[in-house]
């Protein structure tokens, strides 16, 4: 909701936000309020339940999901898996400006660790669960280029034993024999016609395997939790009374942290244990070559998403985030989700379009705010920062202290070798 006349009026009247004058403090000399901020930024491993997916914390489902995540056989090309764009070695991103599946996508691949915590998935929040998110790349003609029938057939043919042990049922051999190689609604006319030609019973069976396979992938992704970083150890030590923070941050990183929470005020949007407000902002980024509606379209899409929390495939009917979402919020125009900053040093390039190559470029952008938004307006809280070159380097140095400990190997590789040639292209 937005009420410009009232807002303008209050600003004109000079109603200040805060006029409290704080004493000048040195980096590392934290006020009580700043200590609260640091405490709020410290990693919290508590993972909220996902009632939309009753297998979300099932270890066997997660194990199957891990197999599926790394399996390029889910793509008819035999060459693209989830891990293609979410590479564990790159913080589960891909190092490219925009991702390359069977074609080129329009946006940068977001990292997975941390995504378990927010209510919205994708840069524009057009999915509201991890498993609904996973459906997107599978059926995207430029990502995995697959479809639900191909996916379901492959799950049963290659992972059938694990699938049946977890979920029971699945496609019968008779169904596998009579199903077409590929069929799905809405991707292209041929697939659509093949889907419409299926019996209601076969469509239902495919949907069952497809959605449960997606939920298995989500169960795996839920295990990819952010891990403790030098920043967290520093905070623990400071809160325990050690003003040196146990030496877990270098002096430049402490200066960067000080800038982060004070002069640069990054915590306005990058707050909480994952350094994100989970909200959507229009940054007025340079280098946008085409209009991208961002959240203004994503908010509409999630409300009608085939696999959203309210869909028949969800395991709950309590969907408060969808219930109260206001898709007409004016500042959703060309707004994109605030990403987590945990592991940010691993996930270059940056922003939804991947247009900023390094963290230094990101800081430079926020410092100078070149140009203006070509749609609506840039987030009003952003103001040029007036940083020195040393300030910029210190902020980058601090961001490097958010790189967590490596995840265990059992989470960053497939459980056993997947033979992509076992499922050759069939269309």
């Amino acid at each position, binding site marked *: 909701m937005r009420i410009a006349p*009232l807002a*303008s009026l209050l600003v004109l009247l000079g109603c200040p*936000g805060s006029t409290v004058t704080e004493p000048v403090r040195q980096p590392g000399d934290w006020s009580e309020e700043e200590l609260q901020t640091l405490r709020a930024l410290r990693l919290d491993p508590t993972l909220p339940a996902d009632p939309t997916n009753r297998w979300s914390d099932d270890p066997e489902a997660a194990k199957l999901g891990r197999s599926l995540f790394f399996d390029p056989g889910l793509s008819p090309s035999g060459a693209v898996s989830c891990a293609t764009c979410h590479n564990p070695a790159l913080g589960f991103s891909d190092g490219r400006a925009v991702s390359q599946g069977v074609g080129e996508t329009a946006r940068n691949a977001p990292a997975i660790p941390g995504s378990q915590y927010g209510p919205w998935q994708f840069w524009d929040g057009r999915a509201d669960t991890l498993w609904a998110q996973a459906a997107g790349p599978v059926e995207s003609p430029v990502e995995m280029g697959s479809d639900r029938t191909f996916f379901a057939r492959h799950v049963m043919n290659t992972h059938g034993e694990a699938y049946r042990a977890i979920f029971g049922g699945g496609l019968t051999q008779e169904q596998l024999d009579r199903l077409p190689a590929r069929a799905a609604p809405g991707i292209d006319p041929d697939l659509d016609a093949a889907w419409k030609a299926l019996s209601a019973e076969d469509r239902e069976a495919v949907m069952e395997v497809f959605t449960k396979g997606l939920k298995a992938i989500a169960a795996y992704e839920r295990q990819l939790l952010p891990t403790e970083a030098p920043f967290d150890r520093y905070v623990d030590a400071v809160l325990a009374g050690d003003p040196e923070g146990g030496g877990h941050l270098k002096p430049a990183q402490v200066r960067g942290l000080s800038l982060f929470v004070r002069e640069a005020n990054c915590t306005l949007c990058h707050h909480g244990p994952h350094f994100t407000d989970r*909200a959507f902002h229009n940054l007025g980024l340079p280098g946008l070559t085409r209009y991208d509606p961002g959240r203004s379209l994503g908010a509409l899409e999630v409300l009608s998403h085939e696999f959203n929390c309210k869909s028949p495939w969800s395991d709950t009917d309590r969907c408060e985030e969808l219930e109260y979402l206001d898709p007409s919020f004016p500042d959703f125009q060309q707004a994109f989700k605030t990403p987590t900053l945990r592991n940010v040093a691993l996930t270059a390039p940056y922003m939804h379009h991947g247009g900023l190559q390094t963290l230094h470029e990101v800081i430079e952008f926020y410092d100078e705010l070149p140009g203006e938004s070509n749609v609506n307006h840039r987030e009003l809280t952003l103001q040029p920062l007036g940083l020195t070159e040393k300030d910029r380097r210190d902020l980058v140095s601090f961001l490097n202290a958010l790189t967590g400990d490596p995840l265990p190997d059992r989470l960053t590789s497939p459980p056993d070798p997947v033979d992509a040639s076992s499922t050759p292209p069939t269309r």
Partner: protein
Amino acid sequence: MTRAWLVGLALLSGCTTSSATSASVGEFRRTQVGRYQVKLELEPEPPPLGELFRVRATVTLRDGRPVETAKVEVDAQMPQHEHGMETRPRLRPGECDAEDRCKFPDGIYIFDGFKFHMSGDWTLLVHVEGPRGPDSTSLIYRAR
């Protein structure tokens, strides 16, 4: 939902709302013209940033008697950022009769679906259309 009353409220109140702080949450305050007293409570308090919470508005006459049949609206905005919330809160239904005349026992009106998606000063605005006529109030709540 009409917003005209908000502008009127701003004109009447000027910057006086800025002097209020989160300490005003949970306390009765008199509305602008003095027709009612309103208490706002946030549940949970403080509401976690980026998470849904509810607002409980208790409306009484000046003598403390509950106002159970008013039309009450509550909104939250960040005037300095020129935006409101990304959500549309809804009033929980009261006890309504066959002719849709609704009563809110003890003058308690509960709104679900509030969300502070940014830290900073939010203005909570309340408008009451009740037995003594329309009146409004507001307070600043610092979300962090």
